[in-house]
Every structure is written in C-alpha cells, then in structure tokens.
C-alpha cells in the first residue's frame, strides 16, 4: 500500500467540523483546505492541556467530528488524550513512505501501556491490524521487532513475541501474518532473510513494525523521519473520534495525509 493508493479511498469521516488543536501555525493551512472542501473548523488554543480538554469536550457534545493535533509535543499529547479516554489505552500509529521501501511502513504502539502483559499486547495488536485492514491491507505482515531472532529469557520481550508468533502460526490472529522476535533487517530486507537463512513468514516485507517498548518506538520513528522520507501520516487509535497526530517533522502534505488517514479509519477504530 502506498499513500497514492490510500488517497484513492473514500474516507468515512471527512466532513463535519475539524478541530485544530495546538499552537503550531503549520496545521492552519489544512484547516483552510478542509473549509474549501465544504467543512467547518474550530481552533482549540491555550495550553496543550486546556486545548486538549476543550477539544475532547467538543467531541463528546457532538460538535467536533475529527481532531488534528500539531504533534510538537508527542508524549504530552498522547498522555492528555489517554487521560481523557480512561476506559482503554490509546494506540498510536505512524506510516512513512521511504525511497528504499516499496510500501508504507507503519509503526505502532500503545504509549501508556506496558507490553509485558500478553493480553494488552494482543489487544493492541488487534487494534493495529484492524486499522491496516480498514486502510486496505487484508493480510498485513507484522514484525515484532527485537535485537535477536531467537527467544531469549534474558530479553523478556522476546518471550511474548515468540508466543504471539506461535499464535499467528496456529491461525489465532486472523489474517495477519505475525512473526517475531525479528531483527529490523529481517523485517524489511528479503536479502537479509536469505543471507541469514532465517525462516520467517514476514519475509523482509513488513507492513507494520511493532517495537518492544516506547523508547524504541520513539527513536525508531524519529530515525525513519530523519532519513529523508517521502510522505508520512500519524494517527491515534481507540479515541471517541478520528484523531490525526502527525510527526513534528511533518510538512503540509503529511499533515493532510494524517487527517485523511484518520478520516479513513473513522471513529473508535
């Protein structure tokens, strides 16, 4: 899946009122484009905390139908959103198109959740896979990233990764092809898979990368963004309305793609 293919799809939630949250001016042109297309916009300003609170209140009243955050303070934004939706931890997902990879490479995690609980891992994985299916990838290849390719008790995340991979092999995870633990090279490089002789169903063609922890997610996404990427989009999953959360490195097009992707996913994805 590429962004060119993605924008051919008709979003479910691309009308109504778009809430612009945060002080960065670079999100304002997206509001102008939204209004040109017949929608309305509302700006939530003030501190990030005040703006987030007002935006979520507006969503609860049925006023704003989709939100766009400026993405300058990623962790603060996610935490504030998470506090406003206490019933279930939110997920974040970033998709990046790179010259060196043939499709959008998505990366996802539950920022406020600990991935040492298998139930939480499976819940989060289910949300991410469902999102990719909605975006048009019926059998997403999911790489559970690690620094090794074998289950090692000394690296605790490899234990749940191996368990989840086994569940995938037994058909317990629907159509998703999930494998791990996998080194990054085995997730994105068929040549590395051949060179190392590792049997992996992902086969170096991952659609979705799931890092073992939040530190890795943040560094990995930043590294991919700073790698001369093409287009990108960031969304929050599990909130009462579609939420676009582009990277702080996003340009005008990336911000629009984030809104578009959030719209495609619709509410309560």
């Amino acid at each position: 899946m590429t962004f060119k293919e993605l924008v051919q799809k008709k979003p479910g939630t691309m009308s109504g009122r778009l809430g612009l949250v945060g002080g960065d001016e670079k999100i304002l042109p997206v509001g102008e484009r939204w209004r040109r297309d017949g929608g309305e916009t509302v700006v939530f300003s003030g501190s990030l905390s005040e703006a987030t609170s007002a935006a979520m209140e507006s969503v609860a009243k049925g006023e704003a139908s989709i939100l766009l955050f400026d993405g300058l303070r990623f962790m603060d934004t996610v935490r504030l959103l998470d506090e406003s939706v206490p019933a279930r931890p939110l997920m974040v997902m970033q998709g990046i198109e790179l010259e060196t990879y043939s499709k959008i490479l998505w990366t996802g995690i539950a920022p406020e959740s600990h991935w040492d609980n298998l139930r939480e891992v499976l819940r989060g994985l289910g949300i991410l896979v469902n999102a990719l299916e909605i975006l048009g990838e019926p059998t997403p290849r999911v790489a559970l990233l690690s620094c090794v390719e074998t289950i090692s008790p000394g690296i605790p995340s490899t234990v749940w990764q191996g368990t989840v991979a086994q569940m995938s092999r037994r058909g317990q995870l629907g159509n998703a092809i999930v494998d791990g633990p996998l080194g990054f090279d085995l997730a994105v490089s068929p040549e590395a898979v051949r060179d190392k002789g590792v049997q992996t169903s992902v086969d170096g063609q991952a659609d979705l990368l799931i890092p073992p922890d939040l530190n890795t997610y943040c560094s990995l996404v930043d590294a991919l963004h700073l790698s001369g990427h093409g287009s990108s989009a960031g969304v929050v999953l599990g909130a009462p309305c579609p939420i676009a959360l582009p990277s702080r490195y996003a340009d005008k097009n990336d911000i629009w793609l984030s809104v578009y992707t959030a719209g495609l996913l619709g509410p309560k994805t």
Partner: protein
Amino acid sequence: MVDALLVGDAKEIKRLLPELGLVEGDFQIEGTTSGANSADAAVRACAEGAAHVLMKGKIPTPLLLKAVLAPEGKLRLGQTLSHCSVLDVPGSGRLLMLTDGGVLVAPDFEQKLSIIENASRVCVALRVTEPRMALLGVSDEADPAFPATLEAAGVARTARVRGIAKFVEGPLTFGTALGGLPANAPWESDVAGRPDVLVANGIEECNITAKALINLRGAIFMGVIAGAKVPLSLVSRSDPPRNKLASLALASLLALEAL
C-alpha cells in the same frame, strides 16, 4: 591493513582462500574442531598478545562473548564491555555512534556511565577528542512518568561531574538530538543538533534504530565492542563486506590507541 590469524576449520579455510583470490601463505591459520574451540583459541591469541583485534566471523555472538567474558580467557580488564555502532549516514557529513546495541540488555546507572566511557575511547580513536553525547529519551524533559528520562538526566550530570565526558546531555529524543532543539525551546544545548554519540536506554532500542539507518538509509556500519583487553570487531552475518571491512578498520584504530 592488518595481518590476519584465521581461526576455524582449517580445511574449509584453505579451500575458501583461493576462491576469494587470496594466497594461503599470507595468513596464519589455526585449525579448530568446533565454534567453542575457535572462540577459545582466538581469545587465547589475543590474551597472549599474538593478536591485537578479535574479529567475529561466522560464529554465534553469544559463543564468542562467552569466551571473551570467561575469567580464564584473560581478556577482561575489570571494566564493563559495551558495543558501539558507528554509522556513516549518507548526507549527514559526520559519523554517528549509537550504543549499546550488542552487549548490555538493560544497562543500569553505573553501566550507562561505563557505556559513555567506552564510547569516549572509541571517539578518541576516531580523532573526536571531545565527543558530544546525548542520552536518549521519549521526551526532552526529565519526566517522572517516564523513569528512564530521570535516569538519563542523572547519568548525564554524573558523567560531567566525574569528568567522563565534557559534553553530555539527556534526556533528548532522537529527533531533538539529531535535528536540534525546537525553535521555541526555553533552553540551550551544546549537544542537540550535532551529536557524535547517542546512548540508548537498552539493547533493543539501539540495535533496532541503528539497523533502521543501515537498512533503509544506506548507512555504512562499523561495530566494535570496547572495554576488553583488545577491541572486538562485531558485525552481523547479513552485513555486506564494506561494513565488515569498516568494522575491522575501526577496531584496528582502537587497538593502535592501546599500543
């Protein structure tokens, strides 16, 4: 660049050399019967001064590290060992080190100080005498919600106070460390935007991020383990020859510093 002592299956080595256009007489060959024997023999050669660099070939890393870390191997100096990935990222104009993606799974406070110390030594071998180092975090602020950011702040301060490194700062996100402070940041940094070294929170973060830059950005990679009697050149089996050669060059520079 180096004289090589090849340790392993002697018959197989002798078969491969002419295939690679190399002359058997140019190499010392020590025949062994298993991976464990190869690791022990290579470690012994380094401990006895017969070799100044230990380079991993097609042997599982844990097997080699077991021999290196064994007390009877005599390669340990009583220091913490850590892995340094030095990357030449196209267009960046400078080398960037990520550490530790190969030895310490979840380094504690003191081990992070050792990682910084080892990274400094590698920087000196690369003629970077006052490296700028960033301890990575999910936020640019020490945040009680994320204990690792508090530790990063503490390690950075301790490293400066103890004189382990002059320019060290943390926590910084990967993006801030490389891209610089946001325009409206209320503070200044002598590291953000021009780091030589990024210290990760754990082995997975470092390994995965470095491999992302190698596999999707075409970075040339040099891997070395510092802190032992001799440097260990450690690369992945899937690394192309240029990375293996660059790693050997880096380890040789480190070895020259020690002579």
